[in-house]
């Protein structure tokens, strides 16, 4: 992003003045035509600032969702730009990520910064420049796409103040005039490309008729002398204004017993008006007939919204307080047609797609949903999560996938592309207060009204595409010291359209093309990624030590001896020395026989000097070897000396400070393994000081062990720990929830379910059945991670010794190695004539292990999850190609 900005500034083809113009225009995100009295500069600055922040805020979910983002955020350096110094000490992050814990801190951080350059860059750019540049940071990315924008002449970008909070707007059929209404406002404006002017103020007439303001307004499709607008009075009646001839009230409809929530003119029959009311009726009025009471449709529920289908005269759709949407046929007003549950809480807004087939609905549950009204499934085909509930939603003309929405208590209006639901396409912040209603003038110009008393027109074309503002770089490190990263690849003009790819997956995927084309398309994220092996962390040594260290408390002498050997084996010489030193500190008496001859050679205070020497050496990473020899030389005689002094050694002086220093040192190095093991070994010692961070060390170590799948060691550590929170951490969330693998419904057993664990009550299928014998599997259930079909272990062995294909006939080659192995074996058997079937069928055989994961049904769910996470960290960062081929999940219901 900032690269583009820099390019722009340095590009010799752009004269400096032009560059400057572009800069100003982008700083002022919404150039306001000066003729119309733009607000002050402060205001503008605020607005552009907000414009920058809001897409980021609303896109936070998508940040996490972007394909390459890792689930493991605590390990993502780019999430903590301030941690660049690498000096976060003792914090959970530092300890938990092995990437930090060896001597070469700088490399890890540097690499991470490089990988996530596009994240850090805007921040840095913002810091470097003054405040205007800060708000321009994202604008830099926008400027190449908006070459024509100049601050003075930008049509369709203006605001008009109407002196009253506005609630709704409606345009005349030729879009030359617009009616805006609010609680105290009832005005008709003349609208041109360049601005708006007040044409008629109907308020005086309204007040005279005891009708102060209006909650909704609709302009009838009739023109000329018949032109009409309809408004809903704040105190109930629908008022029809004859504005074609004289500006007065033509008719007042008071038949609704409760307030009217929405009115709608028929697009085909200009004199038909629908009204939706809280009195649970929808009524159809023919405005040519004065005394006719209107057709009543009894909805039996408060009707919040009603809309005509733009392509079919008799088809209307209504949204209810209960969250239902129902279709009505005007020819049969007695019984409603299809009704379906759309939202939790009321429906706030409906809009038919211009095709007449799809419907967008906004509800209290903060979603916009798109429905295929011809589909019988009653399932939404797209869902867009929004920041607040929508007050109004409207499809963008000529862009079949785009819609605009305004929200309650939200000043911005957002334009979405349903194929990319988590990032709004544009975020338009024309208003200072809640935008209340929207109207597309044409495919590029959006009109909005707001509680800040203004009517605004926005040129949507050329606005910043908010997806471009999202950082594309992410980095995450796994426990093996590998750094996975993504870098966003910059796309050119109109990038949004170019990123379309056919929807992957099964052809019967529920996505339906809204533009009539056959193939549904989805957006691809513009990112490339890779894995960088940092080798910052010696995980082999860690695993070896974890597996072999003794954590037994009480017998310090032997345990230290053992651990010292283990550390030595793992080439951790310093750790080995530490263990020896510990042994000396805490062993009571030792080896009297050997000692005697050397007694008088050393004075007792050498021990202390040896210890301090070793401490000094801790800071010096270079000469571990010398340390080791020196320590070995000096420590051993000191032991003898202590021995000879014939006093209880450990009572003579306290080791508190030494131990504390030692642990602090290891903690600072990130070696929680040492910290924890030492604490555990010394657990029985009475005069051991309290360590405030020990809980952190334990949880970090257990976390690390879990990442390496050393479950039993992790459990042993938590069990050995005296701290209550660590000790009981395995007792949390021990409930195992099961769900049916075919319908995803949870399997409930505590109720009156007839079938228990054996079959799903809902879809009536046998649960976890063996694909070979079709019986429920008890004990070890084995399944293919790709096609998710499961078997008895024995049946799997039998089957896959014969075939590489899935026994269900799904066509998946569950065991591609099988072909290879079979071929090899055939060759072998030809040669040796002794086929070795045993090895082949053994599930612990590396090939078998790769694809068939044996899992006990009652295994620890946390373990499953943890392993799942560990792998997703790795896999998420792989490129999309790799993604398609790799098994995505280890849990069958995720497949």
């Amino acid at each position, binding site marked *: 992003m900032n690269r583009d900005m820099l390019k722009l500034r340095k590009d010799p083809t752009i004269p400096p003045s032009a560059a400057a113009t572009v800069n100003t225009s982008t700083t002022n995100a919404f150039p306001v035509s000066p003729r119309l009295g733009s607000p002050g500069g402060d205001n503008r600055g605020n607005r552009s600032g907000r414009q920058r922040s809001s897409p980021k805020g609303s896109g936070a979910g998508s940040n996490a969702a972007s394909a390459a983002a890792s689930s493991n955020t605590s390990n993502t350096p780019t999430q903590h730009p301030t941690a660049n110094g690498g000096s976060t000490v003792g914090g959970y992050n530092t300890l938990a990520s092995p990437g930090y814990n060896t001597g070469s801190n700088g490399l890890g951080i540097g690499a991470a910064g490089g990988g996530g350059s596009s994240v850090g860059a805007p921040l840095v750019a913002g810091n470097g420049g003054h405040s205007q540049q800060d708000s321009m940071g994202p604008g830099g990315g926008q400027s190449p796409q908006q070459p024509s924008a100049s601050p003075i002449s930008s049509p369709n970008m203006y605001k008009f103040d109407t002196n009253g909070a506005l609630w709704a707007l409606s345009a005349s059929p030729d879009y030359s005039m617009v009616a805006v209404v609010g609680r105290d406002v009832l005005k008709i404006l003349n609208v041109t490309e360049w601005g708006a002017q007040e044409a008629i103020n109907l308020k005086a007439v309204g007040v005279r008729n005891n009708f102060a303001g209006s909650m909704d307004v609709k302009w009838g499709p009739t023109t000329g002398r018949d032109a009409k607008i309809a408004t809903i009075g704040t105190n*109930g009646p629908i008022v029809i204004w004859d504005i074609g001839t004289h500006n007065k009230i033509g008719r007042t409809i008071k038949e609704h017993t409760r307030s009217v929530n929405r009115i709608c003119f028929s697009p085909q029959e200009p004199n038909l008006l629908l009204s939706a009311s809280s009195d649970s009726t929808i009524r159809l009025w023919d405005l040519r007939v004065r005394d006719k009471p209107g057709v009543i449709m009894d909805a039996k529920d408060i009707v919040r919204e009603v809309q005509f289908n733009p392509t079919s005269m008799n088809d209307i759709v209504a949204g209810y307080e209960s969250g239902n949407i129902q279709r009505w046929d005007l020819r049969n007003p007695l019984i409603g047609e299809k009704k379906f549950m759309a939202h939790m809480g009321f429906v706030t807004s409906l809009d038919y797609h211009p095709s007449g087939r799809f419907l967008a609905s906004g509800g209290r549950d903060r979603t916009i949903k798109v429905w295929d009204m011809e589909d019988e499934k009653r399932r939404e085909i797209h869902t867009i999560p929004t920041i607040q509930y929508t007050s109004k939603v409207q499809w963008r003309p000529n862009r079949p996938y785009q819609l605009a929405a305004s929200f309650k208590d939200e000043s911005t209006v957002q334009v979405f592309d349903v194929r990319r639901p988590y990032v709004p396409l544009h975020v338009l912040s024309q208003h200072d207060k809640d935008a209340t209603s929207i109207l597309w003038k044409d495919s590029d110009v959006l009109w909005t009204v707001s509680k800040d008393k203004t009517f605004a027109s926005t040129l949507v074309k050329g606005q910043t595409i908010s997806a471009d503002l999202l950082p594309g770089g992410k980095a995450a490190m796994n426990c093996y010291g590998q750094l996975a990263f993504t870098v966003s690849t910059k796309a050119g003009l109109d990038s949004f359209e170019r990123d379309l790819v056919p929807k992957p997956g099964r052809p019967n995927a529920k996505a339906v093309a809204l533009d009539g084309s056959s193939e549904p398309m989805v957006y691809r994220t513009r990112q490339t990624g890779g894995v960088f092996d940092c080798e910052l962390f010696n995980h082999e040594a860690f695993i070896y030590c974890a597996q072999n260290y003794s954590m037994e408390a009480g017998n310090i002498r032997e345990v230290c001896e053992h651990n010292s050997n283990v550390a030595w084996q793992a080439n951790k010489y310093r750790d080995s020395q530490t263990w020896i030193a510990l042994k000396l500190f805490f062993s009571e008496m030792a080896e009297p026989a050997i000692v005697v001859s050397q007694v008088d050679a050393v004075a007792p205070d050498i021990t202390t000097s040896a210890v301090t020497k070793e401490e000094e050496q801790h800071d010096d990473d270079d000469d571990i070897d010398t340390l080791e020899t020196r320590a070995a030389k000096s420590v051993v005689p000191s032991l003898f000396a202590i021995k000879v002094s014939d006093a209880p050694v450990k009572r003579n002086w306290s080791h508190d400070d030494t131990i504390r220093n030692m642990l602090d040192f290891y903690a600072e190095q990130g070696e929680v393994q040492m910290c924890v093991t030492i604490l555990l070994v010394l657990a029985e010692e009475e005069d051991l000081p309290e360590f405030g961070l020990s809980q952190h060390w334990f949880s970090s170590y257990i976390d690390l062990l879990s990442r390496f799948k050393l479950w039993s060691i992790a459990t042993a550590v938590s069990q050995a720990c005296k701290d209550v929170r660590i000790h009981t951490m395995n007792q949390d969330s021990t409930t195992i929830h099961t769900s049916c693998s075919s319908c995803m419904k949870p399997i409930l057993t505590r109720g009156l379910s007839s079938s228990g664990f054996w079959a799903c009550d809902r879809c009536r299928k046998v649960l976890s059945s063996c694909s070979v014998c079709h019986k429920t599997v008890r004990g070890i259930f084995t399944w293919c991670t790709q096609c998710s079909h499961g078997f008895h272990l024995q049946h799997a062995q039998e089957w896959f010794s014969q075939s590489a294909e899935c026994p269900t006939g799904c066509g998946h080659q569950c065991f591609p190695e099988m072909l290879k192995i079979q071929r090899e074996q055939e060759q072998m058997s030809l040669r040796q004539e002794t086929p070795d079937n045993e090895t082949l069928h053994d599930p612990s055989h590396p090939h078998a292990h790769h694809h068939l994961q044996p899992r006990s049904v009652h295994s620890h769910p946390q373990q499953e999850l943890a392993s799942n996470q560990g792998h997703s960290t790795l896999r998420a960062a792989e490129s999309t190609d790799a993604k398609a081929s790799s098994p995505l999940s280890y849990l069958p219901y995720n497949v």
Partner: protein
Amino acid sequence: MSYSDYGDNDPIYGDDLADEDRESRPRLMLMGLRRSGKSSIQRVVFHKMTPTETLFLESTSKINKDNIHSFIDFQVWDFPGQMDFFDPTFDTTAIFGEVGALVFVIDSQDDYMEALARLHSTVVAAYRVNPNITFEVFIHKVDGLSEDYKIDTQRDIQQTTTDELADAGLENVQLAFYLTSIYDHSIFEAFSKVIQKLIPQLPTLENLLNILCANSGIEKAFLFDVISKIYIATDSSPVDSQSYEICSDMIDVIIDISSIYGRAAIGAKSQGYLDDQQDQEDWSHQQDGHDDYEDSNGGGHGHSQAVVSNSSRAGSLNNQPAQSGGNHEAFSVIKMGNGTVLYLREVNKYLALICLLRAETFEKQGLIDYNVHCFKEAMDQVFELKRAERTRREMEANQLLEQQHNGLYGHG
């Protein structure tokens, strides 16, 4: 337990029923399978029990009737889940004849197939007896469900139920579905909507509130029943859960503060609004054998009084003292950080008006006060009318019921 316990000759049952028939207050029935949470709902909403305490509720063994004395008087019947209402010994006509709303509670965390079957049979039987019942389905205990699963469950239940009813030829029966939990405000909100359907004056109240909002610059106004935290009316703009929750919390705060700092409401019971409007008999009438309710009702009443007499002190941040006199004018103001003002004003003993408005609008507090005063007068007029017509309506209703009885017996 044998069904004959609930037979017509049972003294507890028969006598009470006769009483109720005379009184003809709207009846609200809580039904559902056993352990679906009916009694918990009743305790939490009407008896101020904390949700966690409901774990220790014994299962209900007989029909538990509660008279709720509030702005509108109604009666809540809590049915034991294991009861079979459709046993021949059971007088369905007597049960369903007077019911205003039937609330059917379904435990969403359990397998609800059986509950749906029971719901179906209940609706069919009740509709046959009394087609004017409004049926409300509470999909209960949703606090344990994820958002996605919530909507799936509701969709599933709604679809199954309406399809089954359509198959039974009862397309016209309208069921309303609510996702509820006693651990948040959803149960109060659902009950608000149920109660609102029982209030014949609702359109008028709504319209009055609309006018009040439009003329005073109020964004949202609720008319709350203080004891139960149910809102009996609001203006016609959609209710979003946050504004309801904050108003509900405000009532809690004010009740709490006033019960700490409030003057003891001695003698308040015998004077004031209620007694002018409502006959003492009606108020003091208590069902026999419902001591627990009597207690909690007394407590609730005390709370209400506390608000009346002390909320001016509670909201004393920037208030003048409440106007003295028989007509209590307690009010309270909470100004929030985001520029919104919560303005509570006592309407009468049971009701409080809570308005949400912007701080800049609240500068004209005098205007708002005047408008609220007008609103109160209008409300008084509405309910004066109600009282005048009450006797007449009762007579009519009795006649109607008799006709119905005769008609049914004729068919039978």
